[in-house]
């Protein structure tokens, strides 16, 4: 049975199902119960589960993360939400210093089942302080799990699995995914943390990616296929723990690796993938691995600059041809057709 849902609706359904079956699950964050409901993902939950379990909070990111941790220690399962990952910069002591260490430093005697939803990604001119893609930071910290789903199916299954996980999970949603649609079964199902997915099979080139860049990678793969190059796209889904084997298997088959990442280049997540592949499959590499990422600069606000800041399918395609040692003329893209690059589609009108 087909059942099309938006990514944002899949998030909503996951939360709703978790709350319905487990009274210890609760949701909090700035604006969670408000009429906009975090891009629709928490709409109506307060009416259904009550103000006691669906709560707004003061703008106290660090303190409220501590509150979530404390409640988790005594048996609750909080889902905390930040409308922008940038706000979590204030909470890193509690996230990385406390939550991540709590299980280990007490010898496994305590648990912090805590999901922190953070939204990354573009919009009109979100600029330097509202669009950082800091997943690399979280993926560096032992004790944190980091999830970045790309599809409606995965976001639901991974969110349910995250809520059921007994560890702090940083759950990252890209703003440009909320409106995409896809098949989403009803009812509870889990997508296990730490398992990647082959989003497209191919023999010539491996593209390892996650979150929104999976869409760009798939677009790129289509474009490459038109010219006879067959890319395999691996959607990592979970950055930590990282499901390394399928990437290695793929590169052993294709001999070529592109890592497409929503984050900055230097000391970013993409470097880790390159390092792992090189360490384990050097002999299979037919060409140097490549990273398609943000350049190492803050996010500019003007669309005239942002258009060049964010990597796209076009960059992946150009990189792929470069790896093949070919100069291929790239198909005409949106921008030359006068379309706007700072929105994912026409449904997106406004800065968020």
């Amino acid at each position, binding site marked *: 049975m087909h059942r099309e849902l938006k990514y944002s609706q899949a998030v909503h359904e996951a939360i709703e199902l978790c709350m319905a079956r487990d009274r210890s699950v609760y949701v909090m964050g*700035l*604006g969670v119960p*408000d*009429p*906009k409901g975090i891009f629709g993902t928490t709409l109506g939950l307060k009416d259904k589960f009550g103000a006691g379990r669906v*709560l*707004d*909070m*003061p*703008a*106290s*990111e*660090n*303190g409220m993360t501590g509150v979530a941790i404390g409640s988790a220690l005594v048996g609750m399962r909080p889902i905390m939400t930040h409308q922008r990952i*940038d*706000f979590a*910069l*204030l909470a890193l002591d509690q996230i990385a210093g406390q939550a991540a260490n709590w299980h280990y430093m007490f010898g496994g005697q305590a648990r912090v089942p805590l999901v922190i939803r953070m939204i990354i990604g573009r*919009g*009109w*001119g*979100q*600029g*330097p*302080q*509202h669009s950082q893609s800091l997943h690399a930071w979280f993926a560096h910290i032992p004790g944190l799990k980091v999830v970045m789903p790309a599809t409606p199916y995965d976001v639901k299954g991974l969110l349910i699995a995250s809520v059921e996980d007994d560890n702090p999970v940083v759950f990252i949603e890209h703003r440009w995914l909320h409106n995409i649609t896809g098949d989403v079964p009803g009812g509870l199902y889990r997508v296990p943390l730490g398992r990647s997915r082959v989003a497209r099979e191919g023999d010539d080139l491996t593209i390892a990616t996650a979150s929104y860049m999976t869409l760009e990678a798939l677009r790129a793969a289509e474009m490459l296929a038109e010219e006879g190059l067959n890319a395999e796209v691996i959607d990592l889904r979970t950055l930590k723990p990282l499901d390394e084997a399928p990437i290695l298997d793929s590169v052993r088959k294709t001999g070529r690796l592109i890592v497409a990442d929503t984050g900055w280049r230097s000391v970013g997540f993409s470097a880790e993938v390159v390092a792992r592949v090189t360490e384990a499959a050097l002999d299979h590499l037919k060409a140097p691995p490549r990273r398609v990422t943000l*350049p*190492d*600069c*803050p996010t*500019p*606000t*003007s*669309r*005239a*600059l942002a258009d*060049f*800041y964010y990597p796209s399918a076009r960059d992946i395609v150009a990189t792929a041809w470069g790896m093949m040692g070919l100069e291929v003329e790239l198909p005409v893209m949106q921008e030359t057709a006068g379309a706007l690059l*700072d929105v994912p589609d026409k449904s997106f*009108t*406004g*800065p*968020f």
Partner: protein
Amino acid sequence: MRNIEPAVLKRLYQEMLRIRLIEERIAELYPMEEMRCPIHLCIGQEAVAVGLCAHLTRDDYVLSGHRSHGHYLAKGGDLKRMMAELFGKVTGCSKGKGGSMHMLDLEAGFLGATPIVGGTIPIAVGAAFGTVMQGENRVTAAFFGDAAVEEGVFHESLNFAALRTLPVVFVCENNLYSVLSPLSVRQPSGREIYHLAQGHGVESFQADGNDVVEVYNLAGRAISKARRGDGPTFLEFKTYRWREHCGPNYDIDLGYRTEDEFQEWRSRCPIDRLKKHLKGKGLITDLEAEDMENSLRAEIDEAVEFAGESPFPEVEALEQHIFAP
């Protein structure tokens, strides 16, 4: 409104009106989708920016947050460059890199506005600290909203300002909401915001932020005190945002605040109130008021034109300014 020179009152009126007209023009233009950045309009809240900055010189400093248009303008920030910034142009006050949420005008002493709630409060305290270390006699004002006092960094800032008796004025525009969330879900009832500052031992006042004269008087007191070296003051001004949190529209239909509440505050428009007074006292004629409005509109037209005609930054700018040379 006694004790204040008519000329000053007129200037306060003009400044408020100017900000109002500029914000309304932005609201009008925004749906054309050329200002492609989040905007937070201050329509309804103009009195705080104007009454406060009336006492500051260009040598004094101001820092602000996401809702900074009024502060930027009241402090003497360049209008053309602000408009160009909203349009993402290279002539903008941040060369297009910042947009509405990141503006500065160093010549005007507008040291910067950034949108992380509470984030510029310690920076303002640091600016004040820096001026003191350099033996300068400047005052620094920090503008922020009622949500900012929920951030720990607000308290850290107050503690240090009090410890060091710094020349800083904390200006809280309490417009009752943080995005769509009322104070009641964020702060304990019965505890006023200025009580927090009192707890830190900082002299604190609460007043009507829609009464520009009240703002002007309290600000004058706090700023002279700072200038004398007698330390920080905290001012809480109750006021109200008329339009949506972010964007150009009205949003009463969303249901998070009532039509009654909105109308009640709208009837206390700071600009209308002062205009009524000025007219009542014969300090301004209808013709004068009209002239004033017309010349402001002309200035705004010019700024919009400037912004529209200005070029976008070149792609080379993308990787410029990452590091200062």
